């Protein structure tokens, strides 16, 4: 028998476990402040039994990394008939694999950085030095090296000299089997969060990100004070509108639902480039999504609560 309890899933085994736990606590508190009964729990081998024997009215998955964003968990929730907030398994898969989501969005006319993605085997077979030289020539320096999956900038390096490439590659492969080499775009980094309440897909005000360090890495993301945020971003309205249009288009084209975050860069010419889409935006004290919600004059708990209602309705449709 289903009750009104909402189950926030946080933790997991990904390198972003700590971030996920903090996101979970924050969202749980925000929901409780809105009168919602909430339980927070980790994902382990007792979860499915618990979902069967004591099903919540809705799950809010706040898991980052593979378990939370590759669609597998959501497939399981669908199989169990449990309502959940967020994109479907297919949507997650479309967004989580950065090379394929990038290609798909490019086909839809969205500007994305030029990039290549290769597994370790390709470098081994073709010779790493020759492959890296070829891509360094085509993409230019500096370039961004990152795992093809995963968030929080884990394993990401900005390579400014070719001699740094081997170390950057090893660092990125530590987080996954396939690595992307991506054109580096100099400009203003912004994030546009999207809320999709089933009636309207809307973009929240863009958050401009100004890290003290060379790029928005793990330390800059989760150390309060080390990044300065401007909401709304200090950009022309036409550019902001374009960023929001791109975020909504990407959300829609990838088949995402409920909520997502678009990470973008606006280069010096005003061109808006989409870096990636995130289906499980962080909700920590220093995360972008809560800032955008607040800047829109809304309450995080109320927003998530409304998405819980959307998910419940969807499950019962």
């Amino acid at each position, binding site marked *: 028998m289903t009750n009104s309890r909402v189950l926030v899933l946080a933790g997991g085994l990904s390198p972003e476990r700590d971030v996920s736990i903090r996101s979970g606590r924050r969202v749980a508190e925000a929901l409780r402040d809105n009168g919602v009964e909430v339980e927070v729990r980790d994902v382990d081998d007792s979860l499915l039994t618990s979902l069967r024997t004591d099903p919540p009215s809705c799950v809010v998955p706040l898991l980052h990394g593979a378990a939370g964003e590759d669609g597998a968990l959501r497939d399981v929730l669908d199989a169990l008939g449990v309502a959940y907030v967020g994109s479907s398994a297919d949507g997650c898969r479309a967004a989580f694999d950065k090379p394929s989501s990038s290609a798909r969005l490019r086909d839809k006319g969205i500007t994305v950085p030029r990039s290549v993605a290769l597994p370790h085997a390709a*470098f081994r077979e073709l010779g790493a030095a020759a492959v890296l030289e070829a891509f360094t020539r085509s993409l230019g320096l500096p370039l961004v090296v990152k795992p093809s999956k995963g968030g929080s900038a884990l394993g990401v390096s900005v390579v400014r000299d070719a001699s740094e490439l081997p170390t950057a590659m090893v660092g990125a492969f530590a987080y996954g089997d396939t690595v992307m080499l991506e054109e580096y775009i100099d400009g203003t980094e912004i994030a546009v969060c999207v809320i999709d309440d089933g009636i309207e897909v809307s973009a929240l005000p863009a958050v401009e990100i100004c890290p003290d360090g060379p790029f928005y890495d793990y330390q800059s993301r989760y150390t309060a004070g080390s990044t300065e945020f401007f909401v709304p971003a200090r950009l022309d309205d036409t550019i902001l509108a374009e960023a929001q249009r791109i975020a909504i288009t990407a959300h829609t084209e990838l088949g995402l639902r409920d909520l997502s975050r678009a990470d973008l860069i606006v280069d010096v010419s005003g061109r808006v480039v989409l870096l990636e889409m995130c289906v499980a935006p962080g909700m920590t004290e220093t995360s972008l999504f809560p800032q955008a919600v607040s800047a829109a004059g809304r309450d995080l708990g109320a927003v998530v609560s409304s998405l819980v209602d959307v998910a419940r309705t969807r499950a019962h449709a």
Partner: protein
Amino acid sequence: MTGSTSDPTAVTQGDRLDHWVSSYATRARSMTASEIRSLFAVASRPEVVSLAGGMPFVQALQADAFADMVASLIRDRGAVALQYGSGQGDVRLREQIASEIMAPVGIAAHPDDVVVTTGSQMALDLVVRVFCDPGDVVLVEAPSYVGALGVFRAYECDVVHVAMDDEGLNPVALEEAIARVIASGRRPKLIYTIPSFHNPAGVTQGPKRRSDVLSVAQKHGILLLEDDPYGLLGFDGPYVDGSAPRAIRADDADGVVYLGSFSKTIASGLRVGWAVAPHGVREKLVLAAESAVLCPSNFSQLTVSQYLATQPWTEQIKIFRELYRERRDALIDSLATLMPEGMHWTVPQGGFYSWVTLPEGLDSRAMLPRAVAALVAYVPGTGFFVDGSGTEYMRLSYCYPEPERIREGVRRLAGVIEGELDLLNTFGRTPNAISTKGSNDLVQTPPTNLA
């Protein structure tokens, strides 16, 4: 779609999400979130074999007897146990430390020379607080205990690493390091050493080595800070019969501050340790302790005191020693069987840790995410150096997992290392270098369970 009405000229200051960011002390600037620390959050999951943590296996204690003892303590002496106590520590416990606990390491001290602290970590903190101004030089082993490096860093000391060999701190290297510091116009304030069953190196100074190290300290008039949390936990070599290495403090009461702990011999959760110091130093440590915490927990101190008085604590230590010997064997045997060529490791005669040297070119810090994904954890060597060196090392602890889990952990780790070697073969080996990416994040704020 939500529109924006921002005026590019209107907003000049953003939000840093921390109102006090401009108020922090300079020393707080490096207290940051870290990618490497985040991985240890995963290591706490039961699926992961953690060869990282330094947690004693407290499950080996007699829980029922312990519970009864604590119940009777509260019943009989609750009004004392639950009250404030002396800043120097409970006098009965100090007597027990002086007369019983330190006897095996050869220390004969008066109870008045003992200062009880909240774990020996606090004693370490107090000593550095009392002796070191910002910029003062502290000489430490290479590698050294991550928690000590954190304290030295917190007090803004200039930490100078001194080479070790198979017998621990090398006195010749120590002499040379002192000469270099003096030549630069400075005087080292402290020599910090862990002579017995070193954390993380797993080596032990023999009697002559201790004597030589002490001679160097005495010659230059530098206070020796002897950290000895594992001294009673020898189980092999000269210590196979249960004898403990003789403390350096046993041979110089005035030149050595000795740090002891019940964390490994009873239970780390009690947080009871102590310092034995010359009287002048002791007075300052007590005043510093009162300023920091008023007094150490009376409840914990009386629990320890009652345990020592009523429980077979020497028998319990024998149980711990045997348990850790068995686990050390499981680790060393598995390493010998499973690890690829080009690696070596120390074989500790006691304590909790083995120090492992990786094949050339491997970076233990860069490899950690791959290890955690394979459900095994270790502490990268960089955590035990202040300067980001140590990439080629890792610390493996065997104190907590059962032997079978240790073997499974080493099996997983061997696979990770093979994979990393494969990557290096593809992308080329670079000489072991200083890690430039957040190299000091573990030193700055070591997760508790890594101590």
